[in-house]
């Protein structure tokens, strides 16, 4: 597989996801990799980040020595807040999510199916997992963007016909940004929209279980990589 091209770094994926967040919008970034997206919002955009532990207007991480013990995001990182931020209790934070008030969420995933089913909370065979806010976000955000590596550490496709991992929500994902491609969930399946530099549609297809729709594939915007 290494002959196929180079996987994009997490930061480059984050930069690509950031392009999807338009003008004025309210966005929740899932714990882990998606949190990188906040570093890549271009100037001129009014993107406000929500953290489900009760912050609207999460800012950059706190500088060392400037941490406030009461101010952290849902991933337990010391953060700051942006101008115009607000704090709220957990019930209200999830009213915002479940009530459809967020324009988008970016979530990590173990698997996404060709119907847009999402699996990201539990490994198969394990006794327990952690829902976190993922089920709420997947059901409530107006647009669900998945950001994940295209294949597992063992090289198996994460984009599959049917999820074998326990589901987070059915039919919820709009867009998948991986380290080699951008894929849209459309009515008739998965449409390959972009390939990362050095990758052809055929190469992406080889690492993807369901048949990708190939209509108008462009290259990952240069500004991103």
């Amino acid at each position, binding site marked *: 597989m290494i002959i196929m091209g180079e996987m994009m770094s997490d930061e480059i994926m984050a930069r690509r996801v950031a392009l999807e967040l338009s003008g004025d919008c309210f966005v929740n970034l899932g714990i882990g990799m998606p949190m990188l997206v906040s570093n890549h919002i271009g100037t001129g955009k009014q993107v406000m980040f929500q953290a489900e532990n*009760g912050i609207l207007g999460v800012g950059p991480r706190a500088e060392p020595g400037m941490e406030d*013990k009461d101010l952290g995001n849902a991933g*337990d990182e010391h953060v700051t807040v942006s101008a115009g931020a607000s*704090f709220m209790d957990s019930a209200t934070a999830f009213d915002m999510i479940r009530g459809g008030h967020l324009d988008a969420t970016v979530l990590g995933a173990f698997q996404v199916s060709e119907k847009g089913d999402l699996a990201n909370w539990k490994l198969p065979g394990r006794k327990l997992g*952690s*829902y*976190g806010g993922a*089920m*709420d976000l997947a059901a409530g955000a107006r647009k669900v963007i998945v950001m994940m590596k295209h294949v597992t550490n063992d090289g198996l496709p994460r984009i599959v016909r049917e999820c074998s991992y326990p589901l987070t929500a*059915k039919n919820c994902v709009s867009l998948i940004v991986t380290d080699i491609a951008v894929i849209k969930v459309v009515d008739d399946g998965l449409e390959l929209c972009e390939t990362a530099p050095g990758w052809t549609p055929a190469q992406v297809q080889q690492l993807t279980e369901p048949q990708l729709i190939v209509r108008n594939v462009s290259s990952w915007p240069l500004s991103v990589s």
Partner: protein
Amino acid sequence: MSKVFESCAEAVADIEDGATVMVGGFTGRGTPSQLLLALREKGPKNLAIVRNDASGGWKNPIDVDILIEAGMVRKVITCFAVFGSPKKVSLLERAAMDGLVEVELVPQGTLAERIRAGGAGIGAFYTPVGVGTEAAAGKEVRVIGGREMILEHALKADFSLIKAHRADTLGNLVYRMSARNFNPIMAMASRTTIAEVENLVDVGGIDPDEVMTPCVFVRRIVPTGKVA
């Protein structure tokens, strides 16, 4: 009858075996660590714990996992049962695998809403969250407004252990920044709510517009100062 208690030990003295206890906070923020330490010291058995994160995987050193570790817990209703690397097995998962603790896993927003419902006298509600997943197993499904929803029931408890930034002696509470999280709703959902508070002020010291948890919801206050 004053609500102000001198020590956490006194405040938790009547939490007995078999009690259901809600614990506020998320990661370390807003977590009533001093009350948790006192509860471990007191040592009741067979507790049922309601707590957003129970994986023990966050940075805060004193969390509900100290009760699990002490063998005081028979059931945990939570949203985070494992944490960090998916390969890592948490104390809670280990205890569950060993059959020592029963775990009810609830999506975070549903957990918050079930607690709020308990405090608000709502018996149950329909939510779209979790439809078609393990979280819906055994639950009634109904189409409302064209969307499939599942029925979720209210949660109540005997005690809520919460933490606030500021309190007056009547029990009005103010939280600070992201340390608010589950504390206000848990304050409403228990028979007896006990608040560990960083700052205690006289009655009249909190602007009525600023109060986040009105005193009717709080039975006991323990000023502990700013303990991390």
